């Protein structure tokens, strides 16, 4: 006879599983209960605390539609809202609009010309007035007002018949199909009609000194040359804000910016970030979180393709082969950045990872030049058909890391019979006509190609964008390839992301083959913030780290 075992538990297998589940959950929660409360990760019920963000330039343009630089975005993203926003994955999300229009949901007509935007009905300006479709119409029309010192007008200038259908619906017709416009709208912040329509000169409006938006933070005060203070908009329709005050502090010197991060005067380093040479030290600081986040810019050597020495593709290939990029990255940039073969940011949906990798080989470089008929002269410098393989290289004076790269390249190129002279200029001079009108032989520059994550690079690589030849854009290297032109035109007319992906993957292939510029590395930004500042999200598709201050909060 078998007695029931005393050892048998009264628990069923299901009970055991349940216990295990509880135990597991307890295992996850317990440490939090002991050390820090489980609710520490969640934001506070009402906005509390202050965050000081360090910027290397001073934000001075507060009307987001006026010509401005990226540093002003730190304020625009917090005080204003756009119809859509771009999330860290590069996907457009509704902001003031209730949905992102597409051909699928009927927001954009099949021919891509008729657009309809539906808006939220619960948004108010900081002064309490309701936000309506009238504000959208006013904003879009102001941008193309010839008297207004607008920022970019491309895309906006294609709009016709902007119609307010109802307070929550606006429609317009596009003069021609322009798919990137959706992304452009993600950086077009809405301004209040009821305030600006009264101004005789929209450029000189009081609004420009004390802006009124719909964003998560309201304008409080500015101490010129020092900082701007914003306060929480407790009526905000979206997520947050969880902090009471957001301070944008201006610290012009990079070393001083870093010092103030170390001393604790600033809580988060934004624009300019932490320089690569401080990364190792910064990552060991206690009480600070330092992380590497991919950026959107690519550092390259730009070749002016109208110069006879660069017209020969063999020269461009040989120069590329003669660059020890790994050594530059490790030796000069402390291994912070990443190698790349293309202009497209590596976290972009449109990034082509299958491009041939550059191989550093001086022998290969010499061989390419030999085969192409570039013969060393009596001075050791190669020449062909009376053209010496000699050129100057320019970059912004005072950028010591770039200057080291130049010296390194100068030596490398000399070894393959190429002469490179260095002639640097102050930034304010470099980026003027010298750069825009292609007055350089070659230049080192970090360039962002995409605008608000849209892969359209017409402005940079289309033949029609060569300013030196009367074009409109910033194709300063004077690159021209009919196949790329055709692909870019097609890409700008295509709304379907998959179809666009195929187009831009091909563009990258051709550009990698043509080498109009020689990529050195893709920028990785060194972000630093105080421990306990939660809710911070890096987003390479925007130009500022504080693009989403609404979601920040201090760990309680």
């Amino acid at each position, binding site marked *: 006879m078998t007695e029931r075992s005393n050892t048998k538990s009264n628990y069923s297998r299901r009970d055991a599983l349940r216990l295990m589940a509880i135990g597991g959950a307890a295992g996850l929660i317990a440490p939090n209960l002991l050390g820090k409360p489980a609710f520490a990760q969640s934001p506070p019920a009402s906005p509390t605390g202050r965050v000081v963000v360090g910027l290397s330039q001073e934000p001075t*343009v507060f009307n987001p539609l006026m010509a401005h*630089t990226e540093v002003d975005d730190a304020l625009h993203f917090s005080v204003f809202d756009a119809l859509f926003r771009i999330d860290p994955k590069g996907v457009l999300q509704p902001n003031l609009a209730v949905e992102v229009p597409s051909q699928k949901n009927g927001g954009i007509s099949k021919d891509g010309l008729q657009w309809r935007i539906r808006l939220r009905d619960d948004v108010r300006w900081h002064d309490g007035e309701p936000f309506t479709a009238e504000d959208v119409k006013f904003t879009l029309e102001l941008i193309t007002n010839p008297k207004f010192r607008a920022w970019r007008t*491309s895309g906006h200038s294609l709009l016709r018949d902007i119609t307010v259908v109802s307070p929550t619906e606006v429609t317009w017709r596009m003069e021609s199909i322009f798919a990137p416009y959706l992304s452009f709208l993600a950086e077009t912040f809405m301004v209040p009609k009821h305030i600006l329509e009264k101004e005789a000169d929209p450029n000189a409006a009081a609004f420009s000194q004390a802006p009124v938006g719909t964003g998560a933070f309201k304008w409080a005060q500015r101490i010129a*040359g020092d900082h701007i203070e914003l306060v929480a908009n407790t009526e905000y329709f979206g997520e947050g804000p969880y902090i009471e005050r957001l301070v944008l502090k201006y610290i012009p010197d990079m070393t*001083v910016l870093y010092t103030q991060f170390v*001393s604790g005067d600033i809580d988060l380093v934004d624009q300019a970030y932490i320089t690569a040479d401080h990364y190792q030290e910064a990552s060991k600081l206690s009480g600070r979180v330092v992380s590497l986040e991919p950026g959107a810019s690519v550092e390259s050597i730009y070749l002016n393709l109208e110069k006879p020495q660069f017209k020969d593709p063999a020269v461009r290939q040989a120069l590329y082969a003669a660059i020890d990029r790994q050594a530059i990255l490790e030796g000069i940039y402390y291994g912070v950045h990443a190698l790349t073969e293309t202009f497209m940011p590596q976290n972009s949906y449109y990034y082509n990872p299958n491009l041939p990798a550059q191989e550093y080989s001086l022998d290969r470089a010499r061989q390419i030049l030999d085969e192409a008929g570039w013969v060393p002269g009596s001075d050791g410098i190669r020449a062909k058909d009376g053209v010496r393989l000699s050129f100057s290289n320019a970059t912004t004076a005072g950028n010591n890391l770039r200057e080291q790269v130049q010296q390194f390249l100068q030596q490398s190129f000399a070894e393959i019979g190429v002469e490179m002279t260095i002639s640097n200029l102050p930034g304010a001079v*470099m980026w003027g*006509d010298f750069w825009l009108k292609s007055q350089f032989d070659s230049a080192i520059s970090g360039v962002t190609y995409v605008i608000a994550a849209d892969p359209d690079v017409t*402005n940079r690589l289309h033949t029609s964008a060569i300013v030196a030849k009367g074009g409109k854009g910033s194709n300063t290297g004077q690159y021209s390839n009919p196949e790329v032109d055709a692909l870019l035109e097609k890409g700008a007319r295509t709304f379907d992301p998959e179809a666009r992906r195929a187009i831009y993957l091909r563009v990258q292939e051709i550009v990698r083959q043509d080498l109009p510029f020689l990529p050195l590395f893709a920028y990785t930004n060194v972000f630093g913030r105080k421990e306990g500042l939660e809710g911070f999200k890096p987003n390479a598709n925007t130009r500022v780290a504080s693009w989403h201050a609404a979601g920040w909060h201090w760990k309680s």
Partner: protein
Amino acid sequence: MRSFLLNRLSQSLVLLLIVSVIGFVVLNLIPGGPLAQFGLDPSMTQADLDRLKEQLGLNRPLWMQYLDWAWRLVQGDWGTSFRDGAPVLDVIGRHIFATLLLMGSSTVIAIAVGTWIGIRGATHRYSVFDYLGTVGAMVALSIPTFWFGLVGIYVFSLQLGWLPAGNMYTIGDGSALNYIHHLILPSIVLALVHVAIWSRYMRSATLDVISQEFVKTARAKGLSERRILMKHVVGNALLPMITLAGMQLPSILTGALVTETVFTWPGMGRLFLDSLGYSDYPVVMGLLMFSAILVILGNLIADVAVALIDPRIRLS
């Protein structure tokens, strides 16, 4: 006196005119210009840049731009900042307090300490103190201010934690004590060079006076050394210092430039640097004119002060 003043004022106007023409031309000759900041922005097309150029009036001939600017200036309109969109005088006004605070405190330190070192060095010539003063002054003059600034921050802020690493005050705490706490390090660093200058000038001026007959007479009369020093030497030695102080007035603008950058001080020196970087012509021209006026005023005040104090100096 009146004709002297009128004469000086008319000369000053001519000087201002020359400064403005040279400043305007040189500034506009620098390639790049205010729109260069958009050169790397892929969204700005040349058409956008041309439009902005026209809106800012930068496409007109230079002489036309100058005349327009000068005419407005005469009417009291110093123009509008390209970068800020605010009137130039407002922009300057927003930064002047910070600079005055820093320059004021450092000048007080520099004059007090420099004068003391100079007089003591002269009265104790070739003593250890005198040698230390001389060497110290050489060091202070030959090492750049930013180095002192960075060392000061490293030692007193990062290592010892006694003083703030920068800024004019802690955001959220606008108390006088907080301002003073933040003022200590930058004003001492900025004062270092001026202490050196003052001490050297004061030393030689005192030595000059000490060797004068009237000091010997005073001594022969049996006056105490202390009385001689206070009554006869210091007063006379300070006279040339007034001219020096007048000449240092324009350094209100430029002298604090480096210190303001290192200590994140929102003053005029940094405004000048920033405005140059952005080619913000109206503000740079405004600061230039402001500086020129200060130089002229400084010299004028010094001359008048010297004349009033010392009747031996004739103003004819």
